[in-house]
């Protein structure tokens, strides 16, 4: 039986995104794998230059074409101007829409497929941004999903394309394949052992891009990094994905070796750090989102190192997203001042961990 798409924002909010499940290969280190394809309609100016009614036409024709395809039939279409600002922010925190789409001012939308790993942003920087977001390290699977959906959309829409440059995009940095393949990876041991700069430098030297997650500019929070392909011209999609795959595997191995070394030389100190982080999360009374992200990083390391009696990865992934401001306020049912958010957040985190302890029957 094929899964059903959520019927509205409430159902979407209530169902966890697949990438939060903590499943998939190397889930202890790679949180999610994403494939994004940028496409534009040939006969309409790019989004930033199109008139309002042209964008309404794009929204209508693209959503109709998509809903007529196998992948997106019975999907949920959200028109951003009809979505409440807080809910738009929820979609951003779920990694379903970009900040640009989240502004809601122009005729934009997101279509979420019954297979919740697949979504389509309409009238973002490009008319179409097709996205496959899978849990764990699954580049081939994510590519198959996005590629398949693109093949289905293609006959129904005339994509801007020329034989020399390939798919034409609003920004020339995406022209060609329009592909951005990325993995969200947790590298605490390399950071702790101060080897991360060397590793990041080597990633960049092979033409991949890396940036910290959640931080502005290059600030890194929670030891989470996003690694992606840099160029879109001159290489096939498969070539780009394979090189990201190869480099990510090397990084996983490097991080694994660093973790082993750390546990061998400083097991007690690491376990102490892990349990102090857990204790803070479990008993805090006021906590900032950033602190949750950083403490979850330590606990995640503990889970990956088989420190017994910690919570499952799924709970840590949920905390990462559900403690963000929009999710928190929606759960709470009203808007909150930042100071109050910290108190509500602390209550939510304590409760979630207490529930996980009850579920597992282990009292750490």
């Amino acid at each position: 039986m094929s899964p059903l798409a959520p019927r509205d924002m409430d159902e979407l909010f209530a169902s966890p995104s697949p990438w939060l499940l903590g499943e998939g290969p190397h889930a202890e280190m790679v949180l999610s794998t994403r494939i994004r394809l940028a496409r534009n309609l040939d006969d309409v100016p790019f989004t930033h230059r199109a008139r309002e009614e042209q964008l309404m036409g794009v929204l209508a024709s693209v959503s109709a074409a998509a809903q007529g395809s196998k992948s997106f039939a019975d999907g949920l279409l959200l028109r951003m101007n009809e979505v409440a600002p807080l809910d738009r922010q929820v979609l951003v925190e779920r990694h379903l829409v970009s900040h640009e789409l989240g502004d809601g001012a122009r005729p934009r939308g997101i279509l979420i497929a019954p297979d919740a790993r697949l979504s389509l942003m309409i009238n973002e920087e490009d008319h179409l941004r097709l996205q496959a977001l899978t849990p764990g390290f699954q580049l081939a699977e994510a590519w198959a999903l996005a590629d398949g959906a693109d093949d289905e959309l293609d006959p129904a829409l005339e994509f801007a394309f020329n034989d020399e440059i390939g798919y034409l995009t609003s920004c020339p940095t995406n022209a060609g394949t329009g592909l951005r393949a990325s993995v969200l990876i947790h590298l605490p041991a390399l950071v702790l052992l101060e080897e991360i700069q060397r590793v990041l430098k080597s990633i960049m030297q092979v033409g991949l891009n890396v940036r910290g997650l959640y931080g502005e500019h290059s600030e890194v929070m929670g030891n989470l990094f996003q690694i992606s392909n840099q160029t879109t011209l001159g290489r096939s999609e498969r070539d780009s994905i394979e090189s990201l795959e190869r480099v990510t595997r090397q990084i996983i191995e490097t991080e694994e070796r660093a973790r082993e070394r750390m546990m061998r030389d400083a097991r007690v100190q690491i376990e102490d750090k892990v349990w102090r982080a857990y204790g803070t999360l479990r008993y805090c009374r006021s906590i900032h989102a950033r602190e949750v992200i950083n403490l979850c990083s330590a606990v995640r390391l503990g889970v990956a190192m088989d420190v017994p009696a910690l919570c499952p990865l799924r709970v840590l992934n949920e905390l990462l997203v559900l403690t963000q401001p929009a999710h928190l306020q929606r759960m709470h049912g009203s808007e909150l001042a930042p100071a109050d958010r910290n108190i509500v957040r602390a209550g939510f985190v304590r409760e979630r961990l207490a529930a996980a302890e009850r579920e597992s029957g282990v009292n750490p």
Partner: protein
Amino acid sequence: MLCQICGKNPATVHFTEIHDNHMSEIHVCERCAEEKGMHASAQQHKFEIADLLAGMVDSMTQTDEERVGHVQCPRCGMLYSSFKETGRLGCAECYAAFQFQLRPLLRRIHGDTRHRGKTPTRGSAGAARTRQIQRLHDDLRRAVEREDFEKAATIRDEIRTLEAELQAERAGAEGRS
């Protein structure tokens, strides 16, 4: 990938710029990074495609630059000078309208200017087949690198079949015209 400023040395310094929620990436060689006063810690510096383009026309005379700036896309009316400011093109036709200016830029961004990925089905069948052959050549190269000669032989046969089909198609098309 080549340095986006000088276009000569390999780019070894990489910056990600987030500006107005728009992320752009800059790749330069160490020498140019130093000259422009960019350090790993200076990623906040506003340094976008616009600046990159500004750097590229340094060698042009003032009048050259003005002339190029006035090139206009016949479909959407975008001026090249306004692309220079925003880093965004106006429509699909802009790629043709600004092709002479864009080609060196694309080379600097991507290190290449030729698409090697998938093709829409609406593109001509011949073009799709040509690209499929190109892809198979990539596969062939990879198979040889892996020393998987059995696979390489299969791919080679596939390429021959496709090439024969393509030739037959072309001959057929000529015969009809």
